[in-house]
């Protein structure tokens, strides 16, 4: 009987935890408007990629012309406007901090790899996956950290919860999208990045546990994590 109750509680908690996920494009648009206003950044439309991998990135035509991209996978795993604002603030940071040379380099690499795309066997090659991997290595770890710092400061300036970017990164972690330290992925590891983001956000505001955090924490305890 006791086991049955624990099992039932566990099922409810896990189901509830999953049901929190997902934000609408309207939420992303609202965050984008507020975050660009706070940074006096040129408002360009967000382009939504139909890609299940959670990601956001800037694609450059040249130093002055660029587009911001958000994938369907990202909207699916985030839960609040603060979180998408944090991710977008991070991307603005890359532009503001002059990381475009690396971005353009990777965009050019993608173009070079796809120049004869008409002749590619669609069944034999996974361009999307490879391009996605290329996008991941656009920046050095230091540049990612700099963009994270910029994103947190921008969250504060725009009046969002300064923990938004931390929470967004946590969603990646919770959903199994951890970044590694080798191969194509040059980001700092999730643990390293979350730790740094917590230090940065904590300077401005102590973290309050959300209901979602409490539920997840309890679920972790029950699961023996």
């Amino acid at each position, binding site marked *: 009987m006791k086991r049955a109750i624990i099992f039932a509680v566990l099922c409810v908690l896990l189901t509830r935890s999953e049901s929190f996920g997902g934000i609408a494009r309207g939420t992303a648009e609202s965050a984008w408007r507020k975050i660009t206003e706070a940074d006096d950044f040129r408002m360009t439309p967000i382009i939504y990629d139909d890609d299940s991998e959670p990601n956001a990135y800037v694609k*450059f035509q040249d130093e002055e012309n660029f587009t911001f991209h958000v994938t369907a996978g990202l909207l699916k795993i985030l839960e609040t406007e603060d979180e998408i604002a944090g991710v977008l603030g991070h991307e603005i940071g890359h532009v503001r901090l002059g990381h475009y040379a690396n971005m353009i380099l990777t965009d050019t690499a993608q173009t*070079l790899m796809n*120049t004869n795309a*008409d002749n*590619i066997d669609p069944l034999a*090659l996974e361009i999307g996956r490879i391009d996605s991997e290329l996008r991941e290595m656009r920046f050095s770890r230091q540049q990612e950290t700099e963009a994270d710092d910029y994103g947190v400061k921008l969250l504060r300036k725009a009046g969002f919860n300064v923990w938004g970017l931390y929470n967004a990164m946590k969603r990646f972690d919770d959903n199994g999208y951890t970044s590694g330290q080798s191969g194509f992925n040059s980001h700092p590891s999730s643990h390293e990045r979350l730790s740094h983001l917590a230090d940065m956000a904590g300077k401005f505001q102590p973290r309050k546990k959300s209901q979602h955090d409490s539920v997840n924490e309890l679920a972790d305890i029950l699961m023996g994590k």
Partner: protein
Amino acid sequence: MKKFLLTVIIFAMAVPSVAGVKHFGPLSVEVPKGWTASQQGSATVIKSLRSNASVTVAVNPMGEASLGEIAGRLCEQMNGHDLERDSEGDYTFLFTNHAGAGCFALLTDAEDGRYILLSASGVDSCSNNECSEIEAVIDSLEWNE
């Protein structure tokens, strides 16, 4: 591979007909008849009719990196090989693109905070005519700034 490309470029005999001159940023290029030119991000891609040969040109900012660092990074990203620096300080390397075509890339310093990237694809499988057209496209490149 590199020697093969150079041989192709140097000894190609046919003289291709030209459809027109296209201007892309600081560069202009003569596009052979039947080829197409398009802008893809910062790069200009000129492709043959069957899309199995192409020339790509990009003029990009150096940022804080040296030309050697940029060439190394680009070569690594595309699983390239035979990265070399020539006596004039230009960098070359070879890679295979997603269509399986053999490609050659050259990076040179524009000496104004930018670098020029020139790449040719399909160099190991182009017909005689296409190879001579690749050569003609490269020869026709002009810097107009």
